[in-house]
């Protein structure tokens, strides 16, 4: 029956009555060329939008226009900022400070995540741990790292330790909360299946719970990276001699707003590209756990 209908449609399509005049169906070469260029232009616009170049262009343009109305020493435009940044690039400060900050962020972020994932798994798995730890997590995650700045410096000294600990503190909570919610949302049947296949409780955690939660953990760790970057400024504001936070905070003494701007832009760029790299890592290495990149619009 279906074949007959399909066949009917096919013949109907072929009948001269329903086919539009061939001139319209096959556009002339010139029109084809025009269409091709139009398609190319569309593709270029799509690329510019997708890659964010247009957003950045608009931002810089807007910034430049606003800066026209103000004193450049007080509110430098993009050009003045680039000039200021150039000085910092030439004497190597920007690169050195960026690497120092990146290293601290990385250290704090990795340590924080390594501490937080097991805690999150335990909260999701063991009722007593949830009862004991969750209220504290829910309380402390609203206290930002910056509130502990002075305390940490007094307790852990002015060296690296206090700075890294501050970042660890800031990274932890979001990873804990995400991991725990991942464990709590796991389908119980999956655990039952593993149990009937002879998996011990420890093996269930390692081979079922952990892989099942990887998308949640991944999101948590990605958000944790953001938190780590936000806390680096606080960590470097006091008692630091290097780093982007130091640059941003100290430049005010020289009234170099362009340097402050450069530091801020550099910090954003570092975060942006670290996140890109981390996402690419997830997409490639953790694909089987259901990590795919952000979905296309409308998909």
């Amino acid at each position: 029956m279906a074949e007959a209908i399909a066949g009917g449609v096919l013949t109907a399509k072929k009948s001269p009555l329903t086919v539009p005049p061939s001139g319209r169906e096959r556009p002339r070469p010139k029109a084809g060329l025009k269409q091709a260029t139009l398609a190319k232009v569309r593709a270029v616009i799509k690329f510019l939008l997708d890659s964010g170049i247009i957003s950045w262009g608009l931002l810089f343009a807007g910034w430049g226009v606003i800066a026209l109305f103000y004193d450049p020493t007080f509110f430098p435009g993009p050009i003045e900022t680039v000039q200021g940044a150039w000085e910092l690039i030439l004497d190597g400060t920007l690169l050195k400070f960026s690497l120092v900050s990146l290293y601290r962020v990385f250290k704090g972020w990795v340590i924080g995540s390594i501490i937080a994932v097991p805690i999150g798994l335990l909260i999701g798995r063991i009722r007593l741990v949830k009862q004991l730890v969750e209220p504290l997590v829910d309380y402390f995650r609203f206290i930002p790292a910056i509130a502990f700045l002075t305390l940490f410096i007094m307790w852990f000294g002015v060296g690296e330790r206090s700075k890294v600990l501050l970042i660890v503190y800031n990274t932890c909570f979001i990873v804990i909360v995400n991991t725990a919610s991942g464990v709590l949302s796991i389908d119980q049947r999956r655990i039952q299946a593993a149990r009937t296949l002879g998996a011990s409780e420890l093996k269930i955690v390692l081979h079922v719970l952990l892989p099942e939660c990887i998308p949640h953990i991944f999101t948590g760790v990605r958000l944790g990276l953001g938190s780590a970057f936000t806390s680096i400024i606080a960590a470097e504001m006091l008692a630091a001699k290097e780093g982007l936070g130091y640059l941003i905070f100290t430049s005010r003494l020289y009234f170099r707003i362009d340097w402050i701007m450069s530091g801020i832009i550099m910090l954003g760029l570092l975060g942006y590209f670290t996140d890109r790299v981390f996402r690419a890592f997830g997409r490639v290495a953790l694909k089987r756990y259901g990590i795919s990149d952000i979905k296309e619009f409308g998909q």
Partner: protein
Amino acid sequence: MENSLAIEGPLARTLPLPTVLDNIRQQIDPSPLIRIRDMSVCYRGALGDCDVEVLSGVNLDIGQGEFHVILGPSGCGKSTLLNVIVGLLNHTGGEVGVAGRPITRPGRDRGLIFQNADAAIFPWLTVLENVEFGLRMSGTKRQVRREQARKFIRLVGLEGHEKKFPRELSGGMKQRTQIARLLANDSDILVMDEPFGALDAHTRRVMQNELVRMWIETKKTIIFVTHDIIESLLLGQRIHIMSQAPQANIHKTYETGMEYPRSETLPRFTELLSTIQGHFDFGGGI
């Protein structure tokens, strides 16, 4: 028959009569693989008292290598019974034993096939890795478990799909993966909870025939739960009809006594169909 001579020895006169009779009974009818006696399950209320007695007075004997179907309407406590057999749920009264040992927790000898394969198989593992999961948990060497897994992937007809992830499989293939996973884990008893309920009619028919083939090839013991009467008649050697919860139990058991593969046109089939249908019709006595 030789065994029955034992009771004619001197022991027979010294033992009390009931014991002797028990001995005879055991020798003639060896104890079944799964033995359920007067079993009940309560869902406990807040005070620890019996809130709802889902199952009550369930008796069921399942012999080695047999194919049993448990038939009953939705919500009659079929899944509860299965969970007790598998060991995921503890019964509150009576006895449940497998091979003479009481069941208290899940074991490798009893594998459960879930209705929803998506919830049961691991989406981050390939077909091969899913099938060898049980062996990996018990610490079998990689080479050995790979070989074992391949063997059962072939048996369930999934050859060539070993490297696929579950999201690339159809519903029927996912159920085949689940079955292979239990076979590879060397489970003696396959407990199946409406495994084909979510499949389309054609695939379901294919899978029913395939299951019979796998059962004959592997000689496993199968307990198959369904609410589909035709399915129960196509598959089971024995069909146990459950009454409605609360206090559900085995209402009646039918011996199908038909050769495989079966067809709906057999006189015995139509006869049983109408008899069993009678239980489920309005006011049909359940």
